[in-house]
């Protein structure tokens, strides 16, 4: 009896202190999280209502930056906005569907070939910007020794080497190919293990209930039973699509890209922030970008979320 009450008391006092303890345990993560994620977002929002050139104090200008973005900034309206949407739609949802299909096909194979093929397909996503730039500048190099030019000339499709990376018409296409090539990352791995972990009895039951083919199998069983992994994969795909802005600059070797053909909103932000030092305007662009990313994510949660996400 006495030992039990001691235990109870002990548990109670532990519980009282638990909030404080939890706070202390979270603090080491919370500090850098706040400094480099929360505060920058807040600063971006505040600065977006100002004119700020780094040297003078920020001057409040109200909504002027936002108005300028959507009425005056011809590069933004004519190039950056359509580019960003085209790119993000193809690389985000497109890459996502592609990685699901590839992941699904891989799970239809035995373990050893599956692992080898999955490693091959995952490899490009861990190369990093330097390697990606080197590879694809070599492939699309503008002289006849460039791999793409050589192959196309051998096949008789081209008779003159083409300056792929200087031709605005091809630039976006190349950016998309390269991005999709390197997009099979952690979300792709999550999907493989999601598919492998679907309870087998579900398939069995569904076939008894009249499921006819594997397409139905995917739609009615596989995807609904791995919604959490699908959502994780979707969030990763969206973030990746908007984070890959450097790809155009790496391929072209300069910001802005030729004729703004591959200019994405992140490049536009860098252009105004670090080249022209119009920080207020760059901040307004950042806020627009964060809102767009947020909207894309809401859509993903709408599709795959099991409960409405709170925030």
């Amino acid at each position, binding site marked *: 009896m006495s030992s039990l009450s001691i235990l109870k008391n002990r548990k109670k006092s532990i519980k009282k202190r*638990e909030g404080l303890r939890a706070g202390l345990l979270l603090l080491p993560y919370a500090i850098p999280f706040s400094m480099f994620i929360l505060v920058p977002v807040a600063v971006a929002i505040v600065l977006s209502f100002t004119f700020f050139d780094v040297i003078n104090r920020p001057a409040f200008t109200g909504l002027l930056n936002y108005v300028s973005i959507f009425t005056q900034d011809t590069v933004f309206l004519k190039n950056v906005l359509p580019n960003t949407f085209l790119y993000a739609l193809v690389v985000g949802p497109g890459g996502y569907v592609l990685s699901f299909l590839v992941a699904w096909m891989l799970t239809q194979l035995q373990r050893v070939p599956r692992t080898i093929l999955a490693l091959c397909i995952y490899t490009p996503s861990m190369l990093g910007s330097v390697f990606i730039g080197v590879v694809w500048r070599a492939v699309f190099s503008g002289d006849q020794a460039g791999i793409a030019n050589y192959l196309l000339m051998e096949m008789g499709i081209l008779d003159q080497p083409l300056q792929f990376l200087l031709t605005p018409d091809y630039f976006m296409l190349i950016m998309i190919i390269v991005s999709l090539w390197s997009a099979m990352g952690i979300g792709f791995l999550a999907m493989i293990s999601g598919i492998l972990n679907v309870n087998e009895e579900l398939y069995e039951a569904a076939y008894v209930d009249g499921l006819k083919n594997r397409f139905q199998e995917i739609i009615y069983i596989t995807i609904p039973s791995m919604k959490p992994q699908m959502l994780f994969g979707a969030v990763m795909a969206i973030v990746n699509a908007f984070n890959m802005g450097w790809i155009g600059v790496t391929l072209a070797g300069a910001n802005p890209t030729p004729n703004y053909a591959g200019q994405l909103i992140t490049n536009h932000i860098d252009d105004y922030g670090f080249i022209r030092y119009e920080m207020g305007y760059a901040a307004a662009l950042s806020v627009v970008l964060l809102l767009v990313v947020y909207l894309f994510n809401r859509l993903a949660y709408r599709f795959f979320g099991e409960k409405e996400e709170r925030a």
Partner: protein
Amino acid sequence: MRRKTVKTRQRNSYSGSRINPSRFSRSQIKFYLLLLPLAAFMVIPVIMIVNRAFMPLGELHAFPPRIIASNYTLNNFKALFRLYSTTGVPMSRYLFNSVVITVLTVTLNLLISVTGAYALSKKRFRLKDKLFSLNQLALMFVPTAVAVPRYIVIVNSGMLNTLWAHILPLVAMPVVLFLIKQFTDQIPDALIEAAIIDGAGDLTIIRRIIIPLTRPALATAAVLSFQLVWGTVEASNNFITDDSLRTLAFYLNAISTNVSVSAAGMTAAASLILFLPNLIIFIFMQSQVMNTMSHSGIK
């Protein structure tokens, strides 16, 4: 009539799952026909650069362009290591910076994430769910969007031109906290309670229970964090003006964008140096990563 239904049943009937099969069957051929060319498209560019890194100068500029080297040489690597930056910083200095920054960042990242994940998973307090949702919201954070405000934070906290400007912006990775927390949720509460009754404090619990039992998640976190830190050029570009504090990735990137013809082999060698650690770590951690990914879902 009855026979017919039986027959259709049989045709539709479940012939054992075809997911993760243990034997080869003819129905797999179509998948191989699609997957093999895809895998080739994914790895051939990588193989090309690996070969270029070891190609002698003559072959690098041979026509038609070569993908596989016929002679191998280490000259490209030797030339790379002999190189000094325009400001007289030797390559070894950049390598040293990168190693120090990467080791510190990955270690700090794992430590703060595992303690944070433990608190969010096993402690009972009021803001718990709110804080986890906030971290989940931050999964969709796009760092490049706030490069400018980050720069302002770095300047105002006096971190400009210090090693901390490399490390601190990368130590809190929402995806890492998320994965470790999901994994920690699998550890039974009874185990933690038993340890508390035995007089273990939080740090002991983390050291003796959480870390050993979340090893797959920690391995995955290490892979992700390593890849991010080792290859990034953001800090070197934006937060550092002192050349001797920049990283290998920055320097090799600077060499690789230099289009001069003689640099082709060195560029490939540089890319390979940056890539190899990623590949080796991933291959070692591969099964742990897959194990973690099965708990990665967002519910």
